[in-house]
């Protein structure tokens, strides 16, 4: 009988981030992620939402709204280029000009590529590191695949060393330590961050709490709509909100 072995090929590598799994029905370990008994959730320890947390529906609504606000092009109509369109000069140019992709497709591509790079060459990089450790003279390669070199925490030793004068008069403690050449070089050689990584982080948790505004008139939102949780400022705006914008049945 001939020996048959399934060789791994590129098609068998699943995309990072998701995979098909068999649905085996009720799984108690997943109930916490996607609870079916929403009404009893409040009774469970830690199950109930606190005041400031948002429901999934509200989060989706916010995400959709922000996407709507930051959209570049008109979604309803595509505007054709007027006049005669010249013939692209090369094959490459023709391909690029004919792309109908939007920015989100390109950014998703970039994300997927990064995830693949991080997932795939892990063992190889470890092997490389071992090799480097035996050959000390080998220069570090500032290649684009390696993550940004983390800046070593700066030691404060240099500035205090040369202080001979009266410590009260010394201004050296006010001056930051001088620049380290190696540190600067590392910073300058750092590869660009990906689009997603350069995003500003959310505000620090100790900061002022989120402000809430009236959904209708923009004044402080002191009352929460009982049905959908949106804030309004008073009875008048509450009526207007219920007549038009209440998300309960949206």
């Amino acid at each position, binding site marked *: 009988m001939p020996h048959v072995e399934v060789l791994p090929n590129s098609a068998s590598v699943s995309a990072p981030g998701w995979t098909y799994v068999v649905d085996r029905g009720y799984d108690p370990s997943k109930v916490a992620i996607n609870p079916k008994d929403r009404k009893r959730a409040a009774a469970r320890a830690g199950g109930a939402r606190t005041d400031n947390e948002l429901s999934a529906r509200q989060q989706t609504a*916010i995400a959709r*709204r*922000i996407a*709507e*606000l*930051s*959209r*570049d*092009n*008109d979604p309803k109509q595509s*505007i*054709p*280029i007027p006049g005669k*369109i010249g013939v*692209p000069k090369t094959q*490459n*140019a023709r391909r*690029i*000009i004919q*792309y*109908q*992709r*939007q*920015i989100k497709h*390109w*950014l998703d*591509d*970039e994300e997927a590529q990064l995830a693949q790079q991080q997932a795939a060459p892990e063992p190889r990089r470890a092997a490389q590191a071992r090799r480097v450790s035996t050959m000390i003279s080998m220069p570090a390669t*500032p290649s*684009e695949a390696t993550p940004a070199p983390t*800046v070593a925490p700066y030691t404060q030793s240099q500035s205090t060393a040369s202080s001979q004068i009266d410590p009260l008069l010394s201004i050296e403690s006010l001056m*930051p*330590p*001088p*620049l*380290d050449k190696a540190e600067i070089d590392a*910073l*300058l050689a*750092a*590869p*660009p*961050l990906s*689009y997603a990584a*350069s*995003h*500003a*982080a*959310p*505000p*620090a948790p100790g*900061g002022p709490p*989120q*402000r809430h*505004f009236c959904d*209708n*008139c*923009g004044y402080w939102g002191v009352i929460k709509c009982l049905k959908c949780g949106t804030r309004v400022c008073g*009875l*008048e705006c509450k009526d207007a909100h219920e007549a*038009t914008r209440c998300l309960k049945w949206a």
Partner: protein
Amino acid sequence: MPPKGSKKGHPAAPKQTLVLDNGAYTLKAGLVPGGASAPPTYADCTVIPNCIARSTRDKRTYIASQLSSCKDFGELAFRRPVERGFIVNWEAEKAIWEHEFLQEGEGLRCDPKETNLVLGEKPNCPRELQRNCDEIVFEQFEFAGYYRAIGATLNAYNSPDNSSLSALPQECLLVIDTSYSDTTILPLYNGQLLQSAVRRLTIGGKLLTNYLKELSSLRHYNMMEETYLLNEIKEAVSFVAPSIQQFSKDLDRTWKGRVGDKRPLDSSIVLDYVLPDYERSSHGYARPHDPVKFRMRKGLQPQQGPREDLLPLGNERFAVPELLFSPTDIGVQEAGLPEAIMQSLNSLPEMLKAAMFANIVVVGGNALIPGFVERLESELRMLVPSQYLLNVKKAEDPIKHTWLGAARFASQPELLKEVLVSKAEYDENGSTWLVKKFAGGSK
């Protein structure tokens, strides 16, 4: 100047350079002659809308600068080739470039085969898009030489007094580029970007316009199709409150009051914007709020004679640009601009941080909102350690400032020679090489 092709294998570099800051909302473009001449000024820069607009009313399509001949901006739909600051749709961008720089006509014309291109882009651009851009520049347009840089970094070549050219960039400079697509924070050291400290906020001019559009549509008339008009209104009336405390006070003064306890609106803040009707006027204007005229709007307008439609603007005036300082107000999970600047600089060595605080320049269209720079400075002052000097400066012309920096860079042949890639080099090495060269080697 030696005649062209006098040196073997190295044809003389073309004399002129097209400096192009390819923004999402407008192109900032100008031709810079090579060799020593007077340094470029703001006047050398042409601002061209970077869009193709179609009006459903007169069934016309306007390309880029043709928009200035448009009389009726009602329901004008836009197609913008640049999304989030990156050139995505080359079909439209090519049509705009051809219309503005190549076809016969007056204005900015050049022959790409005799011209270098210095193109400014946004930071953190996906590589595939950079490669597409390079391929189009060389294969479709066939520019003689080309340099693609992160536009905002060339701000370092602007000297504070803008008089003489200097080959050396400013040593430490923090550029806040608050533009149409987003707001980016770029620390520069000797004209080079410290890539690991770049931060970006989602809030840009586009989002502010769309937010104002949404608010006005909810509160008054449906204006969801009137992007152009709302952008004009935003530019005319918005301001940034000087502090959080003043923001709450202004909010109180523009409040209508409770059901049984109506308050008069404070006419020092509330404005009436007279909307254009696109028959007698194609642009509107703002004037102080007048309750009598505003009530007349509701049904009591004269049958004959001029009618006018008013859009009252109260807290929209300052609550919209407030998003730059507090994006969580609409649920964007980001820190405000001052805190994001601290996030960016906290990863840098202490000395560099101190130097950055002393030299901050704000560029981009949102810097024109009154009170923006003052608010940024006062909020930053609260976050920056007190022994450090803080100096926040608004560029003289925030929209053209990046272009000017790039033009000053491009008007110095010795600087340009270092970075320029010729078509011959591209043909030999290909686009992958070029993307790597521009990414790694600004040295």
